């Protein structure tokens, strides 16, 4: 599993020069700072730093980018916990319990839980990667549309668990999100429209776009998420003076952050399960976006007190953050071993590869195994650094709770609007934010779970694409799945995941 010669060579590369280490701290700080602004993403941070990549050697460049990624993966949790602003899809589940904890004056502990879970998740993922990078590469190349469809369906089962007090309202919120996720030009509609154009037939606009070109690529997801979650919550806060109403609970205490970090390890099951799930799901395209949701869902499903989730249960934060952090390891496995990006950040990294005339993939693995191991080992060291740098960063960020809301609200809204513009590169981002802010507030007001809509929105396009490709490959024959063992295993796991709670409920009811 491990090439010992390559490991020694990697240690030599890392120990032979100070250059690879010099870039770690700036990279991590850039990643952390970027995610303090709603709407900014890891891929934007990487893209901004792209011009300096050609001036670095390949290994320092790669370590610089992974350090940025490492910092960003945790950084995204800070506004999610303190402001209920999930700066990207990968922090959606962190808001579920993070913000209620912050509102209850337990922001120090919540940030500590997130930091420790993030460090643990990344460490476990990179240890796994060290041993399994080769087998993972072999496994990932066998995953096709049917497997992706089952993973997407697994993600959708989360809607049922986020239903809130009213089943019908929860399900409607989820289905509404699912439909929103399919707005725009799907691959099939694109082909139909091309055909109509070729025939000279007047073409109808793609579904749900109302003829607006800016919606051709679908609804801008990050502005929509910021609108649904953050803006709706900020509207509710206009009646308060501070996020934490009790003045005695507004302190930023390093000791309490450390207590949160220490207490994280009181939930080893949640921590390890989240990290393992994140590492596996991170291998898949788009996996980093749903790893946190799947992990949260599993933590809630297996908990003895599922009702406490969403009310400020630390296990919710730990599950989401450990999976989110470990998904980096999975993404890097796919990037290094297959040369396939699994998301925006790894796509930008691939561009940086090409600046050094290097193409990721099996050949890269074969020719530069020492570089791959050097990156993995450097990331293990980065985890230790993240624990220190992240602690200092959240110590500073924790002071957000001391700012009066009448100042914080317009500042956060302004940054979110500008960030949405930068993300969409047009006014579709800010307009989406405003529309979804109002929709989100109305949903909260009438007791519709916003989280279910976000899950549907995130998975709508992915589910539709995988369903379409599976249908085309199978010709509509369900027996096609029988010939795909990985799909069958995933399907079995999905059915067990759905069926177990039902069986448990049936068994428990007569006993009670």
């Amino acid at each position: 599993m491990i090439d010992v010669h390559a490991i020694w060579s990697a240690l030599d590369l890392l120990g032979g020069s100070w250059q690879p280490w010099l870039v770690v701290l700036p990279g991590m700080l850039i990643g952390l700072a970027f995610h303090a602004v709603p709407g900014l993403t890891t891929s934007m941070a990487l893209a901004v730093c792209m011009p300096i990549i050609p001036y670095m050697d390949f290994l320092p460049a790669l370590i610089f980018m992974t350090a940025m990624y490492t910092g960003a993966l945790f950084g995204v949790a800070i506004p999610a916990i303190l402001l209920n602003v999930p700066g990207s899809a990968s922090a959606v589940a962190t808001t579920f319990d993070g913000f209620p904890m912050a509102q209850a004056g337990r922001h120090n502990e919540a940030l500590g839980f997130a930091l420790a879970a993030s460090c643990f998740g990344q460490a476990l993922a990179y240890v796994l990667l060290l041993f399994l990078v080769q087998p993972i590469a072999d496994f990932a190349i066998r995953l096709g549309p049917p497997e992706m469809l089952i993973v997407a369906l697994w993600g959708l089962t989360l809607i049922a668990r986020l239903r809130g007090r009213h089943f019908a309202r929860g399900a409607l919120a989820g289905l509404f999100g699912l439909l929103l996720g399919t707005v725009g030009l799907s691959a099939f509609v694109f082909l139909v429209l091309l055909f109509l154009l070729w025939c000279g037939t007047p073409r109808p606009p793609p579904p749900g776009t109302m003829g607006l070109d800016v919606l051709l690529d679908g609804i801008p997801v990050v502005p929509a998420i910021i609108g649904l979650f953050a803006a709706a919550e900020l509207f509710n806060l206009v009646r308060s003076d501070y996020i934490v109403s009790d003045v005695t609970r507004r302190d930023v205490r390093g000791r309490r952050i450390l207590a949160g970090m220490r207490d994280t390890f009181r939930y080893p099951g949640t921590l390890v399960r989240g990290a393992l799930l994140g590492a596996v799901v991170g291998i898949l395209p788009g996996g980093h976006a749903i790893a946190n949701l799947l992990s949260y869902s599993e933590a809630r499903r297996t908990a003895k007190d599922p009702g406490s989730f969403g009310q400020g249960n630390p296990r919710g934060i730990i599950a989401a953050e450990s999976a989110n952090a470990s998904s980096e390891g999975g993404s890097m496995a796919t990037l290094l071993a297959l040369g396939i990006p699994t998301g925006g950040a790894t796509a930008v990294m691939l561009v940086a590869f090409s600046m050094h005339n290097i193409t990721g993939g099996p050949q890269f693995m074969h020719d530069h195994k020492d570089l791959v191991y050097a990156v993995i080992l450097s990331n293990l060291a980065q985890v230790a650094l993240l624990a220190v740098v992240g602690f200092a960063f959240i110590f500073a960020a924790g002071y957000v709770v001391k700012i009066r809301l009448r100042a914080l609200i317009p500042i956060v809204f302004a940054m979110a609007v500008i960030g949405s513009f930068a993300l969409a590169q047009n006014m579709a981002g800010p307009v989406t934010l405003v529309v979804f802010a109002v929709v989100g507030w109305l949903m909260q007001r009438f007791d519709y779970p916003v989280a279910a809509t976000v899950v549907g929105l995130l998975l709508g396009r992915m589910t539709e694409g995988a369903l379409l490709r599976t249908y085309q490959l199978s010709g509509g024959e369900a027996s096609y799945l029988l010939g795909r063992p990985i799909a069958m295993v995933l399907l079995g796991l999905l059915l067990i995941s759905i069926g177990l709670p039902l069986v448990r409920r049936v068994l428990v009811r007569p006993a009670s």
Partner: protein
Amino acid sequence: VALTSNSTAPARQEERRAEPREARARPGLPAFALAGWRVSVDVPHLLLVAAAAGWCGWFWFDSYAAAADIENLSLIEPTAIAALLLCAAILRDCIQIHRAAEPSGPPRLSRPPLEPTFRARLLGTMALLALYVAISPFAGFDIATFAYILATLFFLGERRVWVLVLTPAIVCVVAIYAFNTILATPLPLFFGGEP
């Protein structure tokens, strides 16, 4: 639509006695009499459900018009149908019908009412945000952001002049420098850019 007969009235009265004080203080739903029945309607919720149903129906129709094939509609059609059925099911929460003679009075609002101060602040904050986004492409993000933060600060109760001026100025300078110079994302600006 919920239909309640006299036989459930004592149970409902019992439930009402068990409600917390805050819930008991909520206003009753507007109701009208109809042939011996009292129809209570939660109008805002009904409008929300109608809007959701309207959008789902329109999206289904729009998708059908774009390409009426199984490949295009395989996810959209069943999802839209399920959403419409759920909207119909939720109508039960919006419209409730009871016998007019039932002594327990009309059902109460299922959510706390908006206090007048909060309602004014909420609508004002929403309007200012919408206005900010509407004028940004024309006035430029520099002018619009400054004006938005200043106006919202003032609207939410800030009266110190130095806070009203310095807060938007600092946010504008930092945000515009960061986006335009560091991130190379050209924002429409009034000063030094094209609004």
